[in-house]
C-alpha cells in the first residue's frame, strides 16, 4: 500500500496536484456557508435532561433573551433619581419600545412597570410607576419612595443604592441582538445625558463572542501560519523547501474546515481553534521528510529515487505519530459535549489528512523542482546545524542525563509528587463572561452592574406540583356521580371528564362550566342533586390543583428565599410570595406589618386577581403557570462563576434536607448559570474518561509499534509527566480549571507522544545499528534530538499568535501549548535518557540479546 501511494505521488504528480487543488477549492468554497454558534447551551447535547428541562422552563415561564442596558449616575447625590437621569431613561425606554424586534409587552423599565400604592385612606391605586418623566426633583424622589416599597423592582430595576437603573429589552430573536444593540447605542448617543450607559446581556455577549471568534480565525490563524513559515525559514533557510509544508498545512486546514462546515456543523469556540491546531501539526511531518531529503540528496542524484527512499523510511513512524495524535484528539469523542466532540473528530481527521497530503504532496512537489533548485537546496543544507546553540545544548544535556540518570529520575519523581499535590489544589470553575478580557466593554458592564445590583446572573429554582392520583381519583368519582344524571346532560359531561387534562386549568374550567350549565337546565331532582355534588367536588379539586396558591407552600417558598439570600450565595430572589405579600400589604392599607401572605388559598387567589388588574397582568406568568401547578424562584447572582452557582446549589440541597419540601413537590434547577455548571461537570468527568481512554489506547498502540510493552510504558512517560506537570502548575498557580484547560489534557497526550515515539524508535534503530548503548545514546542527541527540539519549538511558537486573540480561552490555550511543548520536549530529551541510563537492559531487548550486537551493520547514524 505504501509503495502504491508513493508511486502515485512520484509518477503522477500533476494528478496529485489537480486532485488536492480541486478538493481544496470545492471544500474551501463551503467555508463561506459558515454558521457561528456561540450559545453556551450547545455545550450540552440537545436531548440532555437538564437542558431539556431548562428549555421547558423557558417556555413554561416565557423567558426570552434580553439585552440589558445599565445606567449609572455616580455624581448626583440622589443617584439616578433626578430629573435629568429619569427623563433620559424615560425617553430611551419609549424609543426602544418602537424598535422592531423588541418584545414590547415584556420590556422592563421604570417607565413601563406598574406601581401599586395608597391614595389616601382606604383607597388603593394602580398606576404606571413613571408614566411621564418627572419634572421636579420632588417627583423624582417620589419615584424612589415607590420603588423602594416594591421588592420586585428594588435591586432589579433600580439598584439598592439608587445609583443605577436597568432596562431589560427582551428580543424576538437572538439574531437581532447585534442590529438592535447598534440601534440602542445610537439612541443613547442622542440622549444628551451625562450618565454612564452600559449595554450587556447574554445575546449581546454571544454576538460579540461570535465576532471575536471570526477575528481569531481571520487574524490569529494566518498569523500562526506566518510565524511557522518564518520559523522554518530560520531552521532550513530555503523558501522553496518551506513552501511545500505550508501548502500541506493550508490544504489540510481548508479541507478540514470546509468538510466541517459542509457537513452542516456550526463553528463553536472549540472548532474555531481547529485551524490553529492543524497548522503546526500538519507542518511537522513535512519537516521530517524535507530535512531528511535535504540531507540525503546529492547534486546529480535522481530526486525520485531519493524521495522515494526517504518517504518509505519515514512512513511507519509518521503513520504512528499521526495515529497516536489522532487518537488523542479522537478521545475527545468520549466527552459528551458536542462542540468538544466535533473539535476532536475534525482535528483527528485533519491530522490523518495531513499525513496523507504529506506523503502525496511532498514527493510530488520535490520531483517537480528544477534540478538547479534541488542542487542549491542540498548545498545549503549540506552544512548541518551541528554547531548551533541548540545542538550544543542538546549534546550537553544528553550527556548529563545519561550520567545522572538516577538523580534526574529522583527529581522527576519528586516533581511528580509536587504536581499531584498541585492537582489536588485545582479549583474547577468557569464563567463564560470571563472568556472576555477584563477590559472588554461586556466585562466592564458586568462588573459595574453587579457592583450596584443584586446580580445579573440568572438561575431558577423550579417547583412543580405532582398531583399524583388526585386527578384519576376525581375522574372516577365524577363518573360515578354522572351515572345518576339524566343522560341528556351526562353524555357530554362524561366526554369532558374523560378528556386527558393537558391543561388542568382549562380542563376544570370546561367541566365546571358544563356542569353549571347543565345544572341550570336540569329538571329532575336526582340529576340536580348529583350535578350539585359534582360541581362542588370539581370546584374543590380545582382549588386543590392550584397548588401554588396555598398559603403554606407560599410561606415555605418565602422561607427558602430568605435562607438563600441570608446565605450570601444569592444576591436576591424574586418569586410568587413577593407579589402576594406586596398586594396584600397595599390592599390592607400599606403598613409594613401587612407584608405577609394572607391566610387562605382564596385570599391568595383574590390578591392575585388584583395584581392581574394591572397594565402587565402577564408578568405573573413569569413566576407561576396559569394553572398554579409550577412556580419559579428567580435568583439573581452577582457572579456567574460556576463555583458560586454550585455553592448556592449545595446550600439549597442542605437546606432542603433539613427543611424538606412536601413530597408532592419536585424541585429542579434551571437557568443559564445552572446550565453552565451542568456542562462543566460533564466536561470534567468526560475529560477524565477521554484521557483514560486515550491513555489506554495509546499505550497499546505503543506496545504494538515497539512490539514491546516495556517500551510502550516508556513512551507513555513524557506525556504522563507533562500532563501531571501542566495540571500541577495549574493547581499551584491557582488558575481555574475551565473549558480550555480541560481540553488541554487530550492535546498533550496527542502531541507529546510523538516526541517519545521518535526518540525511542531512533534510539532503538541506533542500538541495532551501532550495537552499542554508549554510541547510540551519543548519536541520539545529534540529528534525532534536534528534530524533536525543532518540532517542539515550531509547535510552541506556532501557537503564540493566540496571545493576541481577543478572547481569553484562546490565550490560555496559546500559553499552555507553549508550556506543554516545553515540558514534553524536556522530559523526552532528558528524562527518557535518564531512565534508559539505569533501566536500559530491562527496556531494550537489543541490550539483553548479545547476538544483536554482532548482527548490527555499521552504518552512519545520520542516514
Amino acid at each position, binding site marked *: 500500500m505504501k509503495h502504491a501511494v508513493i508511486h502515485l505521488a512520484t509518477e503522477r504528480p500533476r494528478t496529485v496536484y489537480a486532485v488536492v487543488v480541486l478538493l481544496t477549492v470545492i471544500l474551501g468554497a463551503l467555508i463561506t456557508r459558515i454558521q457561528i454558534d456561540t450559545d453556551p447551551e450547545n455545550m450540552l447535547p440537545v436531548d440532555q435532561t437538564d437542558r431539556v428541562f431548562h428549555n421547558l422552563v423557558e417556555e413554561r415561564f416565557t423567558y426570552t433573551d434580553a439585552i440589558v442596558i445599565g445606567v449609572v449616575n455616580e455624581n448626583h447625590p440622589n443617584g439616578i433619581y433626578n430629573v435629568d437621569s429619569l427623563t433620559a431613561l424615560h425617553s430611551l425606554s419609549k424609543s426602544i419600545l418602537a424598535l422592531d424586534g423588541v*418584545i*414590547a409587552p415584556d420590556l422592563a423599565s421604570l417607565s413601563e412597570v406598574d406601581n401599586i400604592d395608597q391614595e389616601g385612606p382606604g383607597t388603593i391605586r394602580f*398606576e404606571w410607576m413613571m408614566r411621564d418623566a418627572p419634572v421636579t426633583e420632588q417627583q423624582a424622589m417620589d419615584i424612589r419612595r415607590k420603588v423602594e416599597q416594591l421588592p420586585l423592582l428594588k435591586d432589579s430595576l433600580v439598584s439598592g443604592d439608587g445609583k443605577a437603573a436597568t432596562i431589560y429589552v427582551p428580543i424576538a430573536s437572538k439574531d437581532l441582538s447585534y442590529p438592535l444593540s447598534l440601534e440602542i447605542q445610537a439612541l443613547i448617543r442622542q440622549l444628551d445625558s451625562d450618565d454612564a450607559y452600559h449595554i450587556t446581556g447574554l445575546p449581546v455577549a454571544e454576538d460579540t463572542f461570535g465576532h471575536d471568534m471570526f477575528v481569531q480565525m481571520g487574524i490569529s490563524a494566518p498569523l500562526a501560519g506566518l510565524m511557522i513559515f518564518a520559523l522554518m525559514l530560520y531552521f532550513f533557510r530555503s523558501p522553496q523547501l518551506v513552501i511545500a509544508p505550508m501548502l500541506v498545512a493550508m490544504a489540510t486546514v481548508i479541507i478540514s474546515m470546509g468538510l466541517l462546515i459542509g457537513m452542516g456543523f456550526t463553528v463553536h469556540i472549540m472548532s474555531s481553534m481547529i485551524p490553529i491546531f492543524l497548522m503546526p501539526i500538519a507542518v511537522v511531518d513535512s519537516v521530517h521528510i524535507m530535512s531528511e531529503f535535504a540531507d540525503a540528496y546529492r547534486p546529480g542524484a535522481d530526486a525520485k529515487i531519493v524521495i522515494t527512499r526517504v518517504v518509505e523510511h519515514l512512513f511507519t513512524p509518521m503513520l504512528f505519530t499521526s495515529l497516536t495524535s489522532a487518537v488523542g484528539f479522537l478521545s475527545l469523542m468520549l466527552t459528551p459535549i458536542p462542540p468538544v466532540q466535533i473539535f476532536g473528530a475534525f482535528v483527528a481527521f485533519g491530522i490523518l489528512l495531513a499525513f496523507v497530503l504529506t506523503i502525496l504532496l511532498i514527493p510530488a512537489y520535490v520531483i517537480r523542482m528544477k534540478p538547479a533548485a534541488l542542487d542549491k537546496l542540498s548545498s545549503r543544507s549540506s552544512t548541518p546545524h551541528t554547531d548551533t546553540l541548540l545542538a550544543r545544548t542538546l549534546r550537553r544535556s544528553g550527556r548529563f542525563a545519561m550520567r545522572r540518570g538516577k538523580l534526574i529520575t529522583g527529581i522527576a519523581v519528586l516533581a511528580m509528587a509536587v504536581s499531584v499535590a498541585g492537582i489536588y489544589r485545582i479549583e474547577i470553575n468557569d464563567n463564560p463572561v470571563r472568556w472576555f478580557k477584563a477590559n472588554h466593554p461586556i466585562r466592564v458592564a458586568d462588573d459595574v452592574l453587579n457592583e450596584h445590583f443584586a446580580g445579573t446572573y440568572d438561575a431558577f429554582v423550579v417547583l412543580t406540583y405532582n398531583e399524583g392520583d388526585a386527578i384519576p381519583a376525581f375522574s372516577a368519582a365524577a363518573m360515578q356521580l354522572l351515572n345518576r344524571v339524566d343522560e341528556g346532560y351526562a353524555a357530554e359531561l362524561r366526554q369532558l371528564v374523560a378528556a386527558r387534562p393537558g391543561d388542568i386549568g382549562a380542563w376544570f374550567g370546561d367541566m365546571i362550566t358544563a356542569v353549571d350549565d347543565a345544572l341550570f337546565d336540569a329538571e329532575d331532582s336526582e340529576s340536580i342533586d348529583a350535578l350539585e355534588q359534582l360541581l362542588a367536588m370539581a370546584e374543590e379539586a380545582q*382549588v386543590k390543583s392550584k397548588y401554588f396558591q396555598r398559603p403554606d407552600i407560599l410561606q415555605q417558598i418565602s422561607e427558602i428565599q430568605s435562607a438563600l439570600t441570608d446565605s450570601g450565595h444569592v444576591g436576591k430572589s424574586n418569586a410568587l410570595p413577593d407579589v402576594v405579600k406586596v398586594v396584600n400589604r397595599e390592599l390592607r392599607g400599606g403598613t409594613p406589618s401587612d407584608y405577609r401572605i394572607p391566610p387562605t388559598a382564596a385570599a391568595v387567589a383574590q390578591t392575585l386577581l388584583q395584581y392581574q388588574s394591572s397594565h402587565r397582568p402577564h408578568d*405573573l*406568568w413569569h413566576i407561576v403557570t396559569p394553572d398554579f401547578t409550577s412556580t419559579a424562584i428567580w435568583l439573581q447572582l452577582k457572579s456567574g462563576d460556576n463555583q458560586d452557582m454550585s455553592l448556592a446549589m449545595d446550600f439549597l440541597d442542605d437546606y432542603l434536607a433539613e427543611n424538606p419540601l412536601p413530597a408532592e413537590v419536585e424541585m429542579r434547577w434551571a437557568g443559564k448559570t445552572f446550565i453552565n455548571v451542568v456542562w462543566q461537570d460533564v466536561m470534567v468527568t468526560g475529560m477524565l474518561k477521554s484521557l483514560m481512554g486515550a491513555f489506554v489506547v495509546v499505550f497499546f498502540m505503543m506496545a504494538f509499534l515497539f512490539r514491546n510493552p516495556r517500551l510502550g510504558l516508556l513512551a507513555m512517560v513524557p506525556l504522563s509527566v507533562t500532563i501531571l506537570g501542566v495540571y500541577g502548575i495549574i493547581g499551584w498557580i491557582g488558575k481555574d480549571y475551565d473549558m480550555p484547560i480541560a481540553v488541554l489534557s487530550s492535546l498533550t497526550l496527542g502531541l507529546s507522544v510523538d516526541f517519545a515515539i521518535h526518540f525511542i524508535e531512533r534510539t532503538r534503530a541506533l542500538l541495532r545499528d551501532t550495537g552499542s548503548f554508549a554510541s547510540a545514546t551519543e548519536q541520539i542527541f545529534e540529528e534525532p534530538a534536534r528534530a524533536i527540539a525543532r518540532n517542539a519549538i515550531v509547535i510552541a511558537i506556532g501557537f503564540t499568535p493566540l496571545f493576541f486573540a481577543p478572547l481569553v480561552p484562546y490565550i490560555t490555550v496559546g500559553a499552555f501549548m507553549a508550556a506543554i511543548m516545553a515540558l514534553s520536549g524536556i522530559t523526552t530529551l532528558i528524562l527518557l535518557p535518564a531512565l534508559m541510563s539505569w533501566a536500559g537492559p530491562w527496556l531494550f531487548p537489543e541490550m539483553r540479546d548479545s547476538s544483536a550486537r554482532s548482527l548490527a551493520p555499521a552504518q552512519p547514524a545520520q542516514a
Partner: protein
Amino acid sequence: MIARFSIMLTALIFTTGAAAEVLTDADEVIARADLAAYYAGADGRSDVRMIISDSQGRQQRRQFTVLRRDLADAGDQQFLVVFSQPSDVRNTVFLVDKHMDRDDDRWLYLPGLDLVKRISAGDKRTSFVGAHYFYEDVSGRRPSDDTHEFVETNDDFYVLKHTPIDPLSVEFTSYVTWIDRETFLPMKIEYTNAAGDLYRRVEVSEVEDIDGHPTVTSSRVSDLLTGGKTDMQFRYIKYDVGLPETVFTERSLRNPPHDWLQRPER
C-alpha cells in the same frame, strides 16, 4: 321616563336600520354606537364568561354577573360585577359608578380578605382581572375622550378613526372602529401604538336580538403583541329588569343581591 325613551330610541334604530339615511356626522355615529353598545334598556343583567388564553393557549376562566343601571342615556351609569367562578374568587365584587363629568368611583370587595376597598380610577386602561379587556372596554370609553373622523362608509359599516385628546393617558395613538350601519354596534376595533403597529383588536363574533335590543353575545380581544386573547361570552341577558338603586350601594359589596343575580328563566 329615561328608560322609556331609551327603549324607543334603540327600537327605532333597530327597526329602521339600513333604510335610514346615511349618517355623515362622525360624532353622531359614535354617539349612537355608544348608546347601542352600553345603554341598551334602562338597566340590564348578563352572565359573562371569560376565557383568557396566553400565547401558548393556556387558559384561565372567569365567570361573573353584571348588573347595570343607567341614570341617563349616554350619561352616568352604575355597574355591579359579582364573580362566581373560579370558586376561589367567588363573591368578589366590583361596584362602579360611571360618571360623565369626573372620574368614576370604583369599589372592590374581596371576601377572602373580608376587605372593602376603594380603587382609584386614575387609569382605566388596565387589565380587567387579568383579561385582555380593559376596565374601559367593560364600562365604555367616553366619546368625548377622542376626536372622531370617517375613514369610509361602506355597505355594512361606518368606519371611523378615533384620536385621543389626551394622548399621554392612553397606550394607543389611534384606533379604528367598524360600526354596523344597522345596529350601530361596533363590530371591530383596531388599535395602533406609538411604534405604528396594530397591536390590539376587539371583534364581535355573535349578535343576538334580546328583548328587542341587538346585543353582543360573543366577542374576542386579541393582544397582537403577545399572541394572547380573551373570549367573552354573554348569556342569560335581560333588559329592563327593574334594578333598584339600592342594589348599587356599598351594602351589596359584602352582601351581593342574590335575588337580582339569579339567572332569569327563559
